[in-house]
């Protein structure tokens, strides 16, 4: 009897809570998103693919946000059943298997003021000293757990202050991160009212500090606290802009920099000029000892974990399969280089543009070592990478559009991946879209990469059939027709040339949801998205993804 009473009491209590929470929910607003990325692996000797013990990898993310007036609260539930191959670490023993609420936050927000408690994403300047962010395809979520405060006391001053610890997988760093950033906008004093070409000028500074105690090693005066400072300038007038950021960082000995006691430095210069139908942008960057993490014990197998700063690869992100064989990855300890872009639109009706116009895009990037890591402006002789490329996109008629790309690449594989000869290669790609009826189209892509080094030549092709706006099916193949006798220095040495990396798949999009399924082979190499790369071993099998959102 007592039991029944207890149970009925519990049920009533739950119902009351439910009724209350329902009442609250109906006043506010709940929204969210869901994403699953799942793979079924099979062994495949011809490409060196070895299925993990579970044969399955599945990453799942459920994000929920509740807004009530000026308040927002939310969670992110993550489920790894287990995590997909090479996701957090190339060491399969480190695969994550489990589920939990990984991020949770509460935020109060007004027009010129906000405070957030819990896990948050934030960035100072371009992120060279601090960025906490999420990049799901690459396996990055270094949200800071703590307090994040923003205030704009007057229209020309913005201040951010934060303190917390860095998320890594399902736990947090054994350290505390503190930071502040202030930006002053001088524009209001430089311009008359209703100026035609207003000048914009701002100066900013950031300070970030990481404190980690518990060092028991042999180095005397081991720094428990590592501070980093950034100074920034942004100037803009008419179509011209200039941005400069200079960063210094205290001595930060760790495994990746071989316990070096030297300090870190970085310089970033962005400049751009643009007018109608034309744009040019040039970015230069130099980095010396700038690998800045929340914990000093991070090892290279977990290269993307516990990062405090953001040092993206400043090269053009190409979409072609062969273009993605030799991709650059930032060398945070010693790097200097630049990237330049030119965009031009030959207008429709002009001599070159023709009836539908033509778009030109030129890009060049070069990266190499500094001659002295103590001098941030000393350009050295050791080359890491270059990519000179041109892309032309021309519409011939309402039905046919062609895009042509040529790339010349130099790739220092020893520095970027693993000991191997330097690679010089040329990539040529042509993509055609033929829209043969209002909703139906075919896309055909042909690519070739030619090189005398590494695994030799590659060719690739894609055929894709689309039914707008929802359905798409494709078949693709990437074929290594390397010269006989040239070994392919992939994930596993000794993979024979002549291998076909085929894929067949399709996708359905409906409103905010998208489902895709594909079957085929994945080449071993660097997978790069958002300027960050992770190494993936060769794999073979099925991949299914589903993304959706609700409550918008």
């Amino acid at each position, binding site marked *: 009897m007592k039991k029944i009473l207890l149970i009925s009491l519990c049920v009533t209590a739950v119902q009351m809570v439910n009724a209350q929470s329902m009442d609250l929910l109906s006043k506010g607003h709940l929204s*969210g998103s869901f994403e699953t990325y799942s793979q079924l692996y099979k062994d495949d000797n011809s490409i060196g693919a070895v299925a993990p013990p579970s044969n399955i990898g599945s990453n799942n993310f459920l994000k929920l946000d509740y807004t009530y007036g000026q308040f927002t609260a939310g969670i992110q539930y993550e489920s790894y059943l287990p995590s997909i191959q090479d996701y957090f670490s190339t060491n399969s023993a480190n695969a994550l298997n489990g589920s939990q609420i990984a991020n949770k936050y509460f935020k109060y927000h007004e027009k010129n003021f906000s405070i957030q408690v819990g896990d948050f994403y934030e960035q100072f300047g371009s992120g060279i000293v601090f960025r906490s962010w999420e990049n799901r395809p690459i396996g990055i979520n270094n949200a800071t757990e703590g307090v994040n405060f923003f205030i704009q006391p007057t229209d020309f001053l913005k201040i951010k202050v934060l303190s917390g610890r860095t998320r890594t997988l399902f736990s947090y760093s054994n350290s505390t991160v503190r930071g502040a950033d202030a930006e002053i906008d001088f524009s209001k004093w430089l311009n008359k009212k209703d100026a035609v070409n207003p000048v914009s000028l701002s100066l900013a500074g950031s300070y970030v500090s990481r404190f980690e105690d518990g060092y028991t090693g042999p180095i005397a005066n081991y720094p428990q606290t590592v501070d980093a400072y950034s100074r920034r300038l942004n100037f803009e007038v008419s179509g011209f802009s200039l941005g400069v950021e200079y960063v210094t960082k205290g001595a930060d000995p760790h495994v990746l920099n071989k316990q070096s006691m030297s300090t870190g430095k970085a310089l970033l210069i962005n400049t*751009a000029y643009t007018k109608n139908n034309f744009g040019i942008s040039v970015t230069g960057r130099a980095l010396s000892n700038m690998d800045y993490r929340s914990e000093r014990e991070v090892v290279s197998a977990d290269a993307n974990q516990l990062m405090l700063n953001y040092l993206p690869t400043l090269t053009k992100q190409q979409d072609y399969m062969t273009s993605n064989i030799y991709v650059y990855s930032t060398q945070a300890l010693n790097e200097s280089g630049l990237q330049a872009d030119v965009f031009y639109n030959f207008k429709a009706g002009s001599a070159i543009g023709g009836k539908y116009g033509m778009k030109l895009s030129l890009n060049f990037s070069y990266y190499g070592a500094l001659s002295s890591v103590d001098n941030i402006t000393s350009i050295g002789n050791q080359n890491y990478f270059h990519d000179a490329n041109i892309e032309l996109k021309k519409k011939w008629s309402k039905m046919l559009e062609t895009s042509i790309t040529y790339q010349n690449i130099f790739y220092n594989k020893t520095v970027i991946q693993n000991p191997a000869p330097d690679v010089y290669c040329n990539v040529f790609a042509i993509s055609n879209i033929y829209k043969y009826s209002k909703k139906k189209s075919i896309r055909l892509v042909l690519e070739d990469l030619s090189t005398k080094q590494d695994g030799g030549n590659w060719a690739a092709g894609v055929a894709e059939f689309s039914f707008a706006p929802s359905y798409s099916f494709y078949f693709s193949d990437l074929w290594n027709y390397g010269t006989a006798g040239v070994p392919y220095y992939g994930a596993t040495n000794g993979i024979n040339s002549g291998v076909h990396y085929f894929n067949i798949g399709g996708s359905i999009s409906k409103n905010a949801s998208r489902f895709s399924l594909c079957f085929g082979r994945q080449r071993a190499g660097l997978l790069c998205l958002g300027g960050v790369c992770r190494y993936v071993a060769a794999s073979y099998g099925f991949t299914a993804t589903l993304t959706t959102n*609700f409550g918008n």
Partner: protein
Amino acid sequence: MFKRLLFSFVSMISFASFISAQDNLPNVKIKSVKKGKEVEFSSIATECKDTVLIVSFFATWCIPCASELDNINEVYKDKQKEKPFKFIAVAIDDSRTSQRVKPFINGKGWTFDVYLDINSDLKRAFEVNDIPHILIIKNNKVVYQHTGYVAGGEDELFEKVKTL
């Protein structure tokens, strides 16, 4: 594993079943590429009132996004004559490529307004998973969404606008 996945789905659907549409759009700040000034997203939407507002999330490094916006740029002014609407594009380019956005859009000859969402705050507030992603807003409510792009998708979009 499948039981756990199924559980995730079921809980998600039951959550979704009592969610009503958003009354207030996110007051997240985005930066106008042309004017260099920050504006609250909600104020752009409020200004449109019952005129349809189309928001396209894109990035300079996203190939299908550029194709979609190239094709929209070609026809949207003609389509506006058939039925008035406002079209804006929101770049989620982060500090890696945000400096390229202005030269990129001018070099493409795009004439609609473009905004920067450098820390993806607006993208997160609208629960956008992947780009390209389109939202249609009317009277401060999201009335239609579409994710992904294939050739001809823009025709479907403007057909949808006509019905609103």
